[in-house]
């Protein structure tokens, strides 16, 4: 608002604000006080919720540094008597968390890359090229968004199992198989999201590139894909988090046949750890395991929080 209108506005406003040095007896004072009380209340409530979010996390991290007897003796304290790093090495080694991590990273590297590549290729073609069956394929991909995964569980397991007899690489308990399954199950949302993104890209640039002699493939990789970068980042974050969090598919498909060691991923391993730990009562080891599964993601999030927040919310509100 400009300063010119200020004087006239001043008259309408005097009853609502306390001028500098004003008395509390003025009619506006109650309102101002109300505003302050409201602000105080807001802060209080926000702080309470923040504590409710942080406190459990902090409690888990701190318990991971306690010795087992201390976990039992002083379960609630946030300060361990000293830092028991051995919990971490125990969870990493004896709890096999190191191996789970490696499996998860291997699978994730392949699956996120392939999801992005294949997803944007399909979305691009479906969004920008007219051909027979275009709608049909698009809706086929879209329908995957609503179907419950549990329904497909046993046929999927059977399919993977039978495939493994012919091609061991694509059988159960194989990284490459899990990568392909993750990709297939992530395509629906990736295509849904990137489809709208490619549709908004201007035609003129595509035409210019084609006139200049670029092939369709080249047009996609050197022009369209770079232009869709914001969308790719959003959907990339979405897929990294989503696939890192997967537990049902690996639980179903990463089962070892004939006694070979299981190639578990972190989420799956953590569930087993929590079940076993109940018998062994190695609580500090469990806390260390949860901490190790939690901290990398949290740190990455804190560093890239702006991108993560805008990326994920864009994924929902699109």
């Amino acid at each position, binding site marked *: 608002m400009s300063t010119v209108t200020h004087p006239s506005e001043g008259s309408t406003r005097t009853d*609502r604000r306390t001028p500098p040095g004003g008395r509390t007896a003025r009619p506006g004072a109650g309102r101002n006080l109300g505003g302050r009380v409201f602000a105080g209340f807001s802060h209080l409530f926000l702080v309470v919720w923040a504590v409710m979010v942080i406190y459990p996390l902090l409690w888990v991290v701190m318990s991971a540094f306690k010795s087992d007897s201390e976990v039992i003796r002083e379960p609630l304290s946030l300060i361990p008597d000293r830092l028991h790093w051995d919990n971490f090495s125990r969870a990493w080694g004896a709890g096999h968390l190191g191996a789970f991590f490696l499996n998860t990273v291997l699978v994730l590297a392949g699956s996120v890359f392939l999801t992005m590549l294949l997803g944007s290729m399909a979305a691009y073609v479906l969004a920008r090229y007219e051909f027979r069956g275009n709608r049909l394929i698009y809706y086929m991909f879209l329908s995957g968004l609503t179907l419950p995964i549990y329904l497909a569980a046993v046929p999927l397991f059977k399919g993977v199992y039978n495939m493994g007899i012919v091609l061991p690489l694509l059988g159960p308990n194989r990284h490459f198989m899990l990568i392909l399954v993750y990709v297939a199950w992530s395509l629906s949302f990736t295509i849904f999201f990137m489809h709208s993104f490619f549709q908004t890209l201007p035609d003129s640039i595509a035409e210019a590139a084609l006139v200049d002699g670029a092939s369709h493939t080249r047009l996609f990789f050197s022009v369209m894909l770079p232009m869709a970068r914001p969308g790719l980042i959003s959907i990339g974050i979405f897929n990294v988090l989503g696939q890192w969090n997967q537990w049902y598919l690996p639980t179903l498909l990463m089962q070892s046949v004939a006694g070979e060691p299981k190639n578990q991923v972190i989420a799956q391993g953590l569930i087993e750890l929590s079940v076993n730990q109940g018998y062994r009562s190695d609580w500090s080891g469990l806390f260390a395991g949860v901490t190790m599964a939690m901290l990398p993601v949290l740190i990455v999030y804190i560093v890239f929080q702006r991108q993560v927040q805008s990326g994920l919310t864009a994924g929902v509100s699109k």
Partner: protein
Amino acid sequence: MRHGVARFVTGFLALPVALYLFYVVWPFAQAAGYSLTDWGGYSDRQEFVGLDNYVRLLSDELIRKAFWHNVFFLVTVPLFTIALALFLAFLLNVGGREDRAGVRGVFGSGLYKVIFFFPQVLSLVVVAVMWQQIYRSDSQGLINGVLMKIGLVDPDNPIAFTADPEPFLGVPAVLWWLLLIAVWSGAGFYMVLFSAAMQSIPRDIYEAALLDGAGPFHTFFRITLPLLRDTVSVAWVYLGFIALDMYALVFVMTPSQGGPNHASEIFASVLNFTAFQKGQFGYACAMGVALAIFTILLAALQLRITRRERIEF
């Protein structure tokens, strides 16, 4: 040229479509087929029984129970999450309001947004295992421990949390405790979402309301909320899907995955139990198809109800 385009389109679609057909579409189609048989899942024997499985579904006591539990989550998860998220977003954006400068966010709102978002980036399994520890029914559990210290909970009679089948407001207590986790982990994300939507509302609208003497609550209910309609309805649809997929929590947190005594059974857990423990695969597939139909109908219904005219600004 046309030939080149066709080859290009085929080349780009071949692999994604093939993967999707093999790993997603084909299992679903098979499941639908199996739902018409009495297949046990592992034997070779399977006989076509027509719609028998579906008829059985209608009179299955356990399924009826699970269905109502699903409905419970379907209503409460979006309701509580959205209400809390809206409230937090409101405090965050309007809470620091001062009469002179118009509408103001609270001090430190950026930090709050970062913190509230934490649960969203944690995997559901991490959240579940963590809450398992928080909910422990002895003095080692975070909640029980704290409450025992203050003297609010009798050490000999701790809160049982997810092992408590006693009904509360007509719903087994275990479901309420699971609901709390869902709301805890979802509220921050939707707060950020609503907050972004609130910030895109032009400030002059607020300033005008302020000049007309509207207080923060009036402003919220008369201006902010109506303008957030679209975002809220999208959130509702998404939370609906999350509510149908509470299986991870049930799986990790409840005794015998759906217990105690089937008190926390939901569609997905009954489906898994029927298929993998009872070995009635054909019947389990019929449940899956029913759930799929239910989900699709629900999505259509939600979109229909929440679709209104857009307000452009």
